[in-house]
């Protein structure tokens, strides 16, 4: 049975001006509802805001007495600012784990592609594959780069890119994905999370090289469990699926990129 519960903030770190790394004690949430890396939690951000904020899981582990869950989020508005300002020791109201994660083989070899605040779930993916995967991560600039040490620790190779060239490759991640697949396309799949335009371009490159691709989609969300139907995602077969319940991870071939 799904539950919402009060979860204690056990640690909080600012990764840069906007991004917060927060670890929560989540009871038996991981033990009871974990399906795979890429799921999300739905957090109530104060009493003056009606809607919860969906935040993807960076990493999580079963633990005693309480499971631990790490999230990384950017301060984008009122809700995320409220959450970022919660002190360690305080509790927040969390629903989770929600949605379906990436479909992965334990210790498979994946090409992990993250853009901006889409990078955190890639850490969980990397941990799951026990160091065999390659990560390609893009940021606007060096100041915005997050979680590189954590990726280094859990990947065979990490290739950063920045829009302004201040760190790593000067340009977008899809160019790096092309470079990598040209050299080696023996990956089990490309797994991507980031802005829609990035996902579309990465999916296109993966398709050219015949490598399966899964993408984690984002949409404005309501209930988080599939009842209110607001987080619609257009599919190639003309139907509209829902990011919270059917996703957030979809097979890239299912998604109508022209919608």
């Amino acid at each position, binding site marked *: 049975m799904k*539950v919402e519960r009060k979860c204690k903030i056990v640690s909080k770190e600012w990764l840069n001006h906007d991004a917060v790394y927060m670890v929560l004690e989540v009871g038996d949430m991981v033990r009871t509802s974990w399906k795979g890396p890429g799921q999300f939690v739905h957090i109530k951000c104060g009493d003056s805001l009606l809607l*919860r904020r969906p935040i993807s899981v960076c990493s999580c582990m079963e633990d005693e007495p309480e499971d631990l869950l790490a999230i990384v989020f950017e301060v984008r508005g009122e809700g995320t600012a409220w959450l970022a300002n919660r002190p360690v020791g305080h509790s927040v109201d969390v629903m989770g784990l929600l949605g379906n994660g990436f479909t992965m083989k334990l210790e498979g070899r994946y090409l992990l592609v993250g853009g901006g605040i889409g990078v955190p779930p890639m850490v969980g993916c990397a941990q799951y594959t026990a160091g065999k995967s390659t990560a390609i991560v893009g940021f606007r600039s060096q100041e915005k780069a997050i979680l590189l040490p954590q990726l280094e620790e859990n990947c065979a190779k990490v290739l950063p890119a920045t829009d302004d060239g201040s760190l790593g490759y000067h340009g977008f991640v899809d160019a790096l994905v092309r470079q990598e697949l040209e050299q080696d396309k023996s990956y089990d799949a490309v797994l991507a999370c980031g802005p829609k335009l990035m996902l579309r371009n990465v999916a296109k490159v993966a398709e050219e090289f015949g490598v399966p691709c899964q993408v984690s989609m984002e949409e404005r969300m309501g209930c988080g*469990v599939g009842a209110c139907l607001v987080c619609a995602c257009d599919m190639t077969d003309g139907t509209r699926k829902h990011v919270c319940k059917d996703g957030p991870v979809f097979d890239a071939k299912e998604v109508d990129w022209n919608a």
Partner: protein
Amino acid sequence: MPEKSLKSLHLPQPQDFDAVEIIGGSDDWYQPSGSEPVDRSIRPAAPEEHLPLVDMEVDLAGVKLKNPVVVASGTFGFGREYNQFYDLGELGGICAKGLTLHRREGNPAPRIAETPMGILNSVGLQNPGVDAFIEEELPFLRQFDTKVIANISGNTPEEYGIMCEKLAEAGVDMIEVNISCPNVKAGGLAYGTRPELAAEVTREAKAPAGKGPEMVKLSRSITDETELAKAVADAGADALSLINTLRGMRIDVNTGRPILKMNTGGLSGPAVLPVAVRMVWEVACALPGMPILGMGGVSKGEDAVQLMLAGASAVAVGTALFADPYAPLTVRDGLRDIAARKGLERVSQLTGGVKPW
């Protein structure tokens, strides 16, 4: 300057409270013997309240609801999602997601925008169609000890009739006829604002339904809702439900674009509660004795009590679910406690109890 400075003042310390000695008496009243010292940084619990039992059953146009709390159409899917949180039999009734004759994919995203104490939505009646509902969803809902209310929208009066016939045959407890959806061009928009069209739809839906009561959902934020309510009542509606969402818009100031892909959408949530209370009151005054399912911004017991005092026989909880999946149960318990404190035997005694100036 006075001699005594702040430094010389003695502030009582926590141990002082515990060390208090009652001359000539026992201090058991203060600290039960053998218990841990009290943590005085925490507010002590309120003394336990023993409230009398309240009969929670209500009657909505002949349908007996075990309690007055229903979940609003479009906020609860077909119940499967929230059944992961609690037994659906806890609810007085379930208004299922709005149905159309044929499957609809709804509007493009974004379909939701948050507003001060509310949300705008433009889902656009995404649903699997009435036949799929009867085949796949109704048997699931029927497992629970709760009333099932199907909600329908049609493009023509005939479509309403066909859907009613199918649903009456399949056996739902009640049919809620939606003539007030703000998010579809056909159906809702025209019928919900023109009394003669609303009456035609009501008659068409009434004819085949026959067996089960028909409830018409009003409110397109027109100036005088009572005129429409009267027309629908004269055409044979057994009950009314109101309010539907109110049209609204939110614009992203950086891009100049509306948040919703459809530009406008329906406003719901605590922001609309006072509008709902007013409309329920006006319609209840205009049509004494007409059963009303009141809804709009209900998120706690007190909100539900307001709608009942205004004239509703039962209330629906909708948007509050997105903040708290357990909201309908919290509302039910809050409603029960308020009725008990008022010394009522039956919660239904609240209905129409407002004492206007």
